[in-house]
């Protein structure tokens, strides 16, 4: 079976995961850029691929795959190329643990902060009626609530404070982990690194108070090692905003 198509936004967070996994495996794929800030993910063309309206999604022949972390496991198992999961069962468990910790505990906090400071202000200048119509089109009720908060700036102080607490706390745990092992969850570069790198590469710029050369030397050592991988450079070259470019300047300074 050939023909992989990936529907993705910037090489960042969830979209960045399957992009980088495919690059690492050397799997050629057709790229469909879905502009999240123009709400492409809720337009009929994309909903025909993924009715839930979440990105990324991947097609492989007539198969349609969603959920970025599960897509990465599929990419690793289905295609030839370097193994992105080690053989040891306890290492594999630890890698999956870290990915869940990121996907379900730490990641949502990064996301909430990112949406309140970046995504919200980027889309807020449209007329209210237009924003309401855009919300109406979103299939999942949870996503409708999230977009409403972002568009109208309805984040509560308490929930933002809790997200900031989790970022600080989670980053400290990651620093400890990378003091024990070369990579996240094992001594091998794996899906956990791809997952967590895509949500943390910007930390030295976005949260210099929690991640820096002095405060988190292990994270900085690891970020640099991942950043220097050719697959990361190729993936970042696919970005259409200056997101990746801005961070590459930071990385060069590490």
């Amino acid at each position, binding site marked *: 079976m050939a023909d992989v198509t990936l529907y993705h936004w910037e090489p960042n967070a969830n979209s960045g995961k399957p992009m980088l996994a495919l690059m690492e495996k050397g799997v050629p794929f057709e790229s469909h850029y879905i502009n999240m800030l123009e709400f492409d993910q809720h337009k009929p063309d994309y909903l025909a691929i993924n009715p839930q309206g979440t990105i990324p999604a991947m097609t492989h022949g007539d*198969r349609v*795959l969603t959920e970025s972390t*599960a897509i990465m*496991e599929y990419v690793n198992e289905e295609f030839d190329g370097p193994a992105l999961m080690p053989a040891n069962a306890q290492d594999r468990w630890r890698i*999956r643990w870290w990915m869940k910790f990121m996907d379900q505990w730490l990641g949502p906090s990064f996301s909430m902060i990112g949406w309140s400071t970046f995504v919200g202000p980027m889309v807020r200048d449209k007329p209210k009626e237009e924003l309401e119509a855009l919300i109406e089109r979103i299939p*999942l009720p949870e*996503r409708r609530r999230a977009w409403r908060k972002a568009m109208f700036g309805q984040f509560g102080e308490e929930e933002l404070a*809790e997200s900031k607490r989790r970022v600080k706390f989670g980053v400290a745990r990651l620093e400890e982990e990378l003091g024990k092992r070369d990579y996240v969850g094992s001594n091998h570069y794996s899906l956990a690194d791809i997952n967590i790198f895509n949500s943390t590469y910007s930390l030295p710029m976005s949260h210099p108070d929690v991640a820096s050369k002095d405060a988190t030397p292990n994270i900085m050592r690891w970020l640099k090692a991942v950043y220097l991988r050719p697959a990361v450079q190729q993936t970042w070259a696919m970005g259409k905003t200056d997101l990746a470019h801005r961070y590459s300047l930071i990385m060069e300074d590490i």
Partner: protein
Amino acid sequence: MAEDILYHGEPNGPSLSVLAALAESGLDIECRHIDLLKGARHTLHDAQETLASDMAVEGEGPILLKDGETMSEAVFLAQYFDEAAGSCGLQPKDAYLHWEMMMWCRQVNERLSPAVAYLGNLACSQAPIAALAEEEFAAITRSIFSDDLRQRWQDLRDDVVDAARREDSEAKVRQFVQRVEDKLADGRVWLMGDFSIADLETFAWLRPMTELEADAFTSAPLCRSWMDRLEQRPCVQSALAKAVTENPKRAFAPGPEINRWG
């Protein structure tokens, strides 16, 4: 090196799926029953690397202690058993079916388990937690590393009930029962075709709901038959035989949190 030990609660929710997965794998690992509602999981003897139990996303679930490291999260423990046993058939070999199993389990853990845990804890563990002596409760909360898990214990003790969350949780249980019903509509015996971790994990969280949210199952005959098949499966029987209370369907302890963000 110390022997591996599986610390588990009553066979309900994550303890049920992990005990059944262990039985299915045939691995010889010692099982020790602990009282999750006494916070026993936070003070395990010989635990040195404890991040996975300290920060378990699924809350108060079973822990495998291996070489001093606490291993948590029911689905990943089941995958671990399968892989450590040299592939015992708990995971599809085909990459696409494997993706589907992991995607399904992720949605169980993100949607169904927080809903069941919310309803189950309000119905079954709120009163026992509220009845603990001040000193005993303080000792439990002192032993809990995670601020948000500790808060879920405190909310139960203080009888904090959010009507919208309760309603949303009831809706999520109904939706998941329907999802199982739809999946089985093509006549398949198990959710992924062949038996897998998806069956165990989904069953383990739905089983207590047959008492607490019985109405959710009334128009789901395929789901009910599938649950009967699971109930009879030897690995599930072996897990249920580890119960020390009369009705493990009512055994809950603070579980996974409800999604904070989209």
